């Protein structure tokens, strides 16, 4: 399959200019010598950390220690009373964060697997960064679930492990499905992260000394780059890329069933599965854009690998996903509203006009209005600043969306005598802790893992070339795999 990418300013008389333009714009048409490119990636990873780096580590580390360490300790020792959960909002920000982080983790797989399967060439430099997002995000989601539990120290009871009392988890419970789905997703996405990493680890092994050499030697599991190894690797990656897509869809569908399978007004909606998936992609894409922009802005040599064209491509995806999200949201909303159930109506009214009505309104603005207004323009899309601000806003909006679904919807039930607002307490620190840990993982990983799948970039560059058809200069891609 070949993708054609036409330039709108191609003229026969300034070939030279056109070619410059293409090179500047497209990474795939701007090849550098392999060794130099490898060195650039290695330099980005192994350069001596600056004081800014350490400061970031210290700040994030302290937030993690306070938020995830101390606050979680208090939560376990003193009980959930120090959080804001109550009757009827038995689930609070913990579950908001779980859904949120699982959502974030979706973009990694989406970018990496779906774009790989569909051979979207722009994906090449940032699949790794996205895949890391999956793993790191899932870790936060897992933490959030365990924080949420009243007796977290007994959480292993949810695992189907052999025991003398022959007790199994209850497989009727959506939470059991959830646990299985998340575990499967975490394992498969970690493996899927690891496979394309092997050639880069081998490259890093060959180019480093000291502890790094040992570190990469172990991780590279003896990859030499022989034809046989490449064939096997491609084969495995292909299988995983196809296999992980249904896993990804299933995970968030199953997460949505935690809500959809319940008898609560507002939750009991059949469209929640696809609605949650599109929501996950919405926040995930936004997060991917933000991470890319930060990586490009803070790490060495990244302006070469990550260019406007990538933000442009992600921006298009964001726009389409935003439209999809809007479609599903209103689909869900209108059917629930039309159903006319008195409790559901009360809930929808509460969403819009209740004390958190501002949240509902801003969710719609940042999830729909802002992307639609901004992302039409390719110039704005290509700007890392603009796209990452939109990405952050979308993430805030999606977090709001989950907040409206979990504690706000829980405030309203079929027993009006118990309706009550949820006021978060220690959850705030724990949430900040997960956020800081997520960033900290990236900060640390940036010094340990080659962020750019350099072999994929090189492969892409080999496959791309500029050709002339008549007066038209076009990009052609040859099939390599």
């Amino acid at each position: 399959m070949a993708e054609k990418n036409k330039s709108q300013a191609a003229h026969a008389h300034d070939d030279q200019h056109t070619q410059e333009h293409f090179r500047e714009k497209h990474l795939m048409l701007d090849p550098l010598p392999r060794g130099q490119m490898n060195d650039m990636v290695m330099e980005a990873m192994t350069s001596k950390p600056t004081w800014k780096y350490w400061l970031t580590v210290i700040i994030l580390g302290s937030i993690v220690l306070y938020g995830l360490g101390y606050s979680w300790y208090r939560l376990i020792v003193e009980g959930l009373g120090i959080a804001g959960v109550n009757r009827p909002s038995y689930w609070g920000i913990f579950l908001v964060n779980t859904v949120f982080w699982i959502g974030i983790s979706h973009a990694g797989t989406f970018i990496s697997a779906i774009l790989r399967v569909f051979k979207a060439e722009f994906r090449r430099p940032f699949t790794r960064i996205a895949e890391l997002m999956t793993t790191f995000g899932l870790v936060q989601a897992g933490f959030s679930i365990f924080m949420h539990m009243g007796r977290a120290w007994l959480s292993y009871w949810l695992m189907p492990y052999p025991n003398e009392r022959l007790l199994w988890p209850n497989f009727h419970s959506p939470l059991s499905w959830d646990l299985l789905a998340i575990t499967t997703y975490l394992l498969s996405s970690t493996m899927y992260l690891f496979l394309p990493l092997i050639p880069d680890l081998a490259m890093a092994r060959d180019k480093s000394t000291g502890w790094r050499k040992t570190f990469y030697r172990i991780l590279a599991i003896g990859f030499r780059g022989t034809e046989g190894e490449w064939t096997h690797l491609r084969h495995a990656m292909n299988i995983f890329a196809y296999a992980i897509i249904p896993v990804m869809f299933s995970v968030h569908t199953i997460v949505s069933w935690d809500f959809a399978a319940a008898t609560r007004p507002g939750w009991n909606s059949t469209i929640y599965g696809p609605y949650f998936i599109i929501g996950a992609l919405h926040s995930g894409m936004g997060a991917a854009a933000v991470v890319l922009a930060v990586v490009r802005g803070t790490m060495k040599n990244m302006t070469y690998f990550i260019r406007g064209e990538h933000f442009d491509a992600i921006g298009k995806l964001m726009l389409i996903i935003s439209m999809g999200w809007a479609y599903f949201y209103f689909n869900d909303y209108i059917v629930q509203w039309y159903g006319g159930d008195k409790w559901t109506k009360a809930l929808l009214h509460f969403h819009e006009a209740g004390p958190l009505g501002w949240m509902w309104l801003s969710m719609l603005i940042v999830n729909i209005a802002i992307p639609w207004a901004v992302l039409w323009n390719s110039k704005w899309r290509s700007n890392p600043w603009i796209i990452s601000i939109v990405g952050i806003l979308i993430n805030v909006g999606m977090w709001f969306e989950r907040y409206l679904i979990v504690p706000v919807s829980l405030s309203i039930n079929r027993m009006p005598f118990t309706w009550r607002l949820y006021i978060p307490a220690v959850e705030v620190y724990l949430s900040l802790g997960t956020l800081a840990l997520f960033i900290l993982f990236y900060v640390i990983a940036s010094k340990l893992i080659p962020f750019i799948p350099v072999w994929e970039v090189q492969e892409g560059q080999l496959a791309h070339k500029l050709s002339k058809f008549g007066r038209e200069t076009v990009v052609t891609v040859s099939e390599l795999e």
Partner: protein
Amino acid sequence: MSKNFSRRDFLKLAGVGATTTAILTGCGPASRYVKREPYMQMPEYTYNGQSTYYATTCRECAAGCGLVVRTMQGRAIKTEGNANHPLNLGKTCARGQATLHGLYNPNRVRGPIKHTRGERLYAFDEDPFNGDFPDVAANLSWDDATQVIADALTKYKPNEIAFLMGAAPDHLFDFVTDFTSATGLNAPIRFGALSMFEARATLSKAAENLFGETGLPFFDIGGAEIVLSFGANFLETWLSPLPYTRGFTGLREGKTKQRGYFVQFESRMSQTGGKADEWIPIRPGTEALVALALGRLAFERRGGALPRAFADVNPKEAAEKAGVEFETLERLAVLFADKAGALAIPGGAALGQSNGLEVAEAVLALNAIPDNFGKRGGVYLSALAPTETEYHRPASPKEMEEFTAKLASGEIKALFVHGVNPLFELPKALNFKAALDKVEQVISFATFPDETAVEADYIFPDHHGLESWGYQRVFTGSAQAILSGAQPVVSPFYDTRATVDLLLAAAQLVGGKFAGAVPFKDEVEFIQSKTAPLKNEANGFFSAVDLPTFNASFQQYGGWWKTESAFGAPNTEDVLNRDFDGAEPEFNGEGEFYLVPFVSPTLAEAGANKPWLQELADPTTTVMWSTWVEINPETAEELHIDNEDVVKIISEFGAVEAAVYKYPAIRPDTIAMPFGQGHTAYGRYAEGRGANPADLFSAEYNQAGDILFGGLKVKIEKTGKKLAIPRLESMMGVYGEGLGEE
């Protein structure tokens, strides 16, 4: 351990271990308490894993309900109503349930204490739910305590010694009565805040005026078909709430008749009013007028000559003054006139007005229309308890004022206080604190470190009700004459002593006429001397061949009662042959709001130290753990006051602060406050919580001697502060607050 450790050594070591254990368990300070006993040495009546049940009497209020307490290995586990007991037939109220939180309250007086007035009796800080707040340790022995009392008895002249006791007509009251009458001491005075808020003096005075004999009326709600209640809160704390609640069930679902109709006239919807089919918010002060108007209209409906009582009233004018539709009065009068079982009940704040006596009389007189006196569904005179010859009511607030004046004048030099907490229960206006300061020696027998104990020189704690012997006369609520028996269901948890025993010991120590006045070995002997005559009385529900059997049965059944009804039929000749002027009462104060103080149905006067009572949702507002002031939402809006705004309520005699509860069922010109909180001592769960509306009362009385708690007009001022009042209900779900505008 060396491998040469022989079997012999092992036995030696084991022997030492066993001896040590035996000494520790045997000689512990609380070895009397059964729980510390090793399993193998349990008393014969205690089986491991099996409960033992003891019948006794509830001491949470003066009504005298029978309890059966489940105990296990020396601990009281659960109170249930005594199903045999004719007063409560196996039921209890919430306070009866929570009596165990009194027994095992973390703040009890643990032994005899010599104490400087005003000093704390337990440690305390703002958060009673964390930390340990130990009580002040006992610093006297009981021998010292006996000596102190003996000294007081000898040091002061008989007329310088006074006893102030709780409202319950119990064995201690009898003992002290006997003791004082034989020795020339001042006769004991009984008082309780509940009897003050019931205006019991007014009620019994009205009955006396109408029927010509003393006694407390009983209203047979269960047999009635229509009940008009003028503020009587008979489902809450009024007189004897359990029989009245049972009566209410009878009213609603009588097996042989239609569902009874219930109308409540009051300016603030009480828990009782909330159950009414019609709730009519008449203007405070017009209760007598409305009753008379209803009487006239009902009489006109029935035909015949209008009696003197209803002749002067103009129903239309009355309706206008009361703020009721005249048609409503007409309709109710028709109902009242036509139904066979019609009943009118006076009560509540209306009796605590300057015309309270007339209100009570006018409402009682309404019962002459169906002529239900002494009939099913009508008005009876309460049965006198066994061993009682005439109705003896607790002191009215007016009598308490006289008593206070005696204290203040220095006439009384030694005061013994038992079963009542006058510093909390008496309105501040009576200035009991200042009077107490004039008393040379104040001895409190308080079980709990209450406000009065804090101001006492000595605290010689009596047992908790569940740890003590006794009996109590049931003063109303049952057709049968009941003497409710009490026995300890657990061994005393602390180093407390029965007050009767202590007084006996002191009398022995003094000797002379004191020892001769009460020639008993101990409390139990005294009680049995009082109950012994019942053995020979006819119609007892159990019979005994000899006294020990009688005493055992008395203990086992939880008292003694007759099998036949002892209700008195009032003499009703002159009921309607009197004049009522129907004049409106004087209200004290310049404020724009009528104040309706009501007793918290869950806490009552002494429940505030029991944490589960504090956490029970108030039946009307669902508020927990605090005091609130009820204001009509429209009034609140006019004054720009919102829920949980703290307002200052000012009468001419005092001011209190409380957070606002916008209460939809109160007259716009009325505000209401619960009584029960506002303690400055009384244990960690009570202290520093809420406010006491009795601080607003004036020391003025109606003709029967009841304080004018219902006759106040108050001002409210905003303070700008906010105070969360915990409520069980959802403000969103119940009031639509915070749900957003439509």
